[in-house]
């Protein structure tokens, strides 16, 4: 057995792609060695395999790999004994089978199968050495790694990878495995930090010494250690400003972790006069354009400092230079932003509305001026059934919402659209309700974000996105497979989130009905939304797939209601009575389906004169009254608790009578009873979808 190390050295890999690729390489190596029987018994992927990465390398370490594959004995079954041997003499069939397996007829065995006696051949396949397997199979795994964007670089070759491969290290114990990939052959030499190390290749002594040796070359290849060091150093440096803390920004910590090999943190400052600019602008410039962390005081207000993660250790010699340069870049960017902020305000949003006639939304859907009109009309219709909406402010917000697309600041910082419009609106005397709605119109941008602060903001956001989805669907531009160029799935996800978490009393049907221009588009949109509701329940709320299926089968137009039903079903599903009852429902549904039974609208339940049947009727009437009342007030927990009490009577019923009685009238009566029971809960969930073992 030997330790194994593989490292592939690359020119800087995009930070966003590293975590996925590191995990995939580990998974592929472990799967390969497992499939090839090269992992020892008791191998634990979590503790015996490790992966490392830096912007310039991906690596996998395995504590134990078998030196050779075990020999494999394969047994092939041949013809029946009575065909293979006549009177104890081998027939041509036996000879052919022995030849095919490369053994003599005398080596054939007889085995007993349920079908009788057969001849069989055992052959031993010699195991290959681990080095041989790795050299021949690992390149295929490397080539199969998924990259969001690939490149070619080798002349005359179609080889692609994320960036040019610079070197590979592949060690099995002391020995180099000369894996060949992308024009390179694995050796034992690796490279350290571009600047801090000597820049010369160094020899990796053993797989186990890899990480420490790299650290000696100023590369912290353990991602967790690097992330930890960045966070710790951010904290540490931040403490030099009294009372300050850095704005937590997990995404930026992650990005910086995968952008440096040897992190340090620098504290920079800027002139306090820039704090007169909106915080949103300052933070966007720092975070999105410079990768800086913002600092805030105890009151949550920005302080005139920033933290920059460097890819080099800071010393007394280099720190002042690096600090000064970073500060100058930031100052220039803030100056640009300030210029735009002031320049933009010379033209009020009100005047900019006209300019939207020159801004195309989509060539077949016209300009943003037209879109604004549609959003206004749609938002007004959606607002009709909702109490407490400031309709005048909503109309004004819709009219001004897109005007900031013509500002220089939004052209420069597109991620601030909406936000800039809201800020300008406020400073230009637009009502606070309208200004906030404009500000919030693109919220949530992702499932991690919150929802708009007001009903007006929520309605504006729903109307804008519904208009986009309806327009694109109307043109046949709906998402297909992994292609969603207009981010319509994200738009629909946001609508679902707003409906659920924004407490907006709207159904998807109402939205689609007002937004879609024809029936066919409406149908497509509703199907599309169904998937988004499912996504929300599963990915955001973590509801199990069978509960989602059960609840959605009972309707999804009212998303808030569907989510409430899902919560109640999820909570109830563990109970014994509930499991039994849902199994019974499945049975009832099957019986009804097989009988092709349709419940008449005026069907009534009358005493049957059969004890278990009458008991079930009585219990059902009791339960139905509770369910109807509870469901009306969306108290689904109470409704489900009541349904679960049916268990005793249902069990007794199925035990005591046969539904498919030969007497047609009796059969009809019993099917009616089952159909009424199934129908009574059909609006909450289709219990037949619930998986009992869950």
């Amino acid at each position: 057995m030997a330790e194994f190390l593989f490292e592939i050295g690359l020119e800087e890999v995009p930070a966003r792609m590293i975590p996925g690729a590191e995990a995939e390489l580990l998974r592929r190596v472990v799967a390969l060695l497992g499939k090839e029987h090269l992992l020892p018994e008791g191998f634990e992927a979590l503790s015996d395999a490790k992966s490392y990465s830096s912007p310039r390398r991906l690596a996998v370490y395995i504590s134990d790999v078998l030196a050779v594959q075990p020999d494999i004995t394969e047994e092939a079954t041949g013809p029946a004994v009575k065909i293979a041997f006549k009177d104890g003499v081998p027939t041509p069939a036996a000879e052919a089978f022995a030849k095919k397996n490369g053994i003599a007829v005398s080596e054939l065995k007889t085995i007993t199968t349920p079908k009788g006696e057969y001849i069989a051949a055992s052959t031993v396949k010699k195991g290959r050495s681990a080095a041989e397997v790795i050299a021949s199979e690992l390149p295929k795994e490397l080539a199969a790694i998924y990259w969001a964007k690939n490149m070619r670089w080798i002349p005359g070759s179609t080889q692609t990878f994320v960036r040019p491969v610079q070197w590979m290290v592949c060690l099995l114990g002391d020995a180099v495995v000369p894996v060949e990939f992308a024009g390179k052959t694995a050796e034992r030499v690796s490279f350290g930090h571009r600047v801090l190390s000597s820049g010369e290749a160094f020899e990796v002594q053993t797989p186990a010494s890899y990480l420490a040796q790299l650290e000696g070359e100023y590369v912290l290849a353990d991602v967790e250690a690097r992330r930890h060091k960045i966070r710790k150093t951010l904290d540490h440096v931040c403490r030099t400003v009294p009372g300050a803390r850095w704005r937590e920004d997990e995404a930026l910590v992650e990005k910086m972790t995968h952008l440096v090999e040897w992190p340090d943190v620098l504290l920079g400052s800027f002139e306090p006069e820039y704090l007169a600019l909106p915080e949103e602008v300052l933070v966007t410039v720092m975070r999105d354009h410079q990768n800086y962390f913002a600092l805030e005081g105890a009151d949550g207000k920005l302080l005139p400092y920033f933290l920059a993660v460097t890819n080099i250790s800071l010393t007394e010699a280099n720190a002042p230079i690096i600090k000064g340069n970073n500060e100058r870049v930031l100052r220039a960017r803030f100056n640009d932003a300030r210029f735009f902020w002031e320049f933009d305000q010379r033209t009020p949003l009100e005047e900019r509305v006209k300019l939207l006639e020159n801004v195309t939304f989509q060539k077949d859907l016209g300009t943003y001026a037209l879109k604004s009109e549609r959003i206004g009309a749609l938002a007004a219709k959606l607002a009709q059934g909702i109490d407490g909406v400031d309709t005048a402010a909503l109309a004004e917000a819709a009219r001004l919402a897109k005007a900031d697309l013509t500002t220089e600041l939004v052209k420069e910082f597109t991620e601030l659209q909406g936000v800039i419009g809201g800020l300008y609106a406020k400073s230009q005397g637009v009502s606070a309700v309208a200004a906030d709605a404009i500000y919030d119109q693109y919220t949530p941008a992702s499932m991690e974000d919150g929802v708009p602060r007001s009903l007006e903001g929520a309605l504006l956001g729903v109307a804008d996105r519904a208009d986009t989805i309806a327009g694109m669907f109307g043109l046949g531009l709906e998402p297909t497979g992994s292609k969603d160029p207009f981010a319509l799935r994200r738009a629909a996800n946001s609508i679902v989130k707003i409906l659920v978490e924004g407490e907006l009393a709207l159904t998807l049907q109402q939205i689609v009905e007002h937004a879609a221009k024809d029936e066919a588009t409406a149908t497509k949109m509703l199907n599309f939304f169904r998937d988004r509701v499912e996504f929300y329940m599963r990915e955001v709320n973590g509801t199990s797939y069978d509960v989602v299926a059960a609840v959605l089968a009972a309707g999804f137009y009212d998303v808030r209601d569907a989510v409430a039903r899902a919560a109640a079903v999820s909570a109830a599903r563990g109970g014994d009575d509930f499991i039994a009852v849902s199994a019974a429902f499945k049975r009832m549904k099957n019986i009804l389906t097989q009988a092709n039974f349709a419940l008449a609208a005026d069907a009534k339940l009358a005493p049957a004169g059969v004890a278990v049947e009458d008991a079930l009727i009585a219990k059902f009437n009791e339960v139905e009254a509770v369910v109807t009342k509870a469901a009306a007030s969306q108290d689904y927990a109470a409704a489900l608790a009541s349904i679960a009490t049916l268990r005793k009577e249902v069990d007794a019923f199925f035990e005591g009578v046969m539904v498919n009685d030969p007497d047609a009238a009796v059969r009809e009566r019993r099917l009616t009873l089952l159909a009424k029971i199934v129908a009574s809960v059909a609006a909450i969930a289709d219990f037949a979808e619930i998986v009992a073992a869950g």
Partner: protein
Amino acid sequence: MKSESQKKALTFQELLFTLQKFWAEHGCVLQQPYDLEVGAGTMSPDTFLRVLGPKPINIAYAQPSRRPADGRYGENPNRLFRHTQLQVILKPPPERVQELYLQSLEAIGIVLAEHDIKFEEDNWEWPVGGAWGVGWQVMLDGQEITQFTYFQQCGGMDLDPISGEITYGLERLAQFVQDLDSVYDIVWSRDAVTGKELTFGDVRLHEEQQFSAYAFDYADVDKLWQHLNLYEEECKALLARAKDVLVEECGDTLTILRFPTMGAYELALKCSHTFNLLDARGAISVTERVGVMARIRNLIVGVAKIYAEQERLKATSNEQTLVGA
């Protein structure tokens, strides 16, 4: 008071000399700037056309790049109507080309150990030229000083071999090495005898003022449209002729070789610059923009296809004839 680093720093022209010398010593042919208005060094035929086809090249040139909409009448310390890129094309790129690039920074006095260097993903795309590549923006102490791209496609065609492109923003780099807040304060030259210095402002400010005024205030919109249409017409006529020459007379190498694809390319570039002027003048609505860009794309991609075909025929035809030509 000037800091030590400012005193030692190269002037703007020394910076250019040094980088040119560095790349010349690493096998690059130094070409002169292309004598036509372009928006980026990439658009010079020394990049856009020469990355096509199989023939290896190493070439470097400083290319003035005009971006009318970025003009600020000389009043913004960081934005220019016309700036200068140093463009290096390495086809195919050598092994460890990044290390070579870092050496070029050391050559202009940047001591790497004193700075924070990061290669951050930044992929390049020029849809009008059917061109894209992957690469990085090279960040030095938070400032982007270089765009580094591995070209993958040009004129909508896969490239083989691919080219490595290194684009230095010379004004930014000079501001960086001279430690200055304004581009206009860059020391352009220093008289070796008297020590008298000329700044970027001394040399270039009047151009910025005048070209900004032309682009924003004076340019005649109707005439610009006429120019655009005329350039386009002539370019399209040439592209149509090219089909006859390449398809029907493909036996005649000299005729093929003399066919003025580069002339067609210049007409397409003129369209592109005229479009940019119209844009800066506020004369192109967003709706029109898409349509006009598609027209120019047709020209540029058309030129690239013909140029690539010419290169292919040249490579496969009789060497003797080519030498004679």
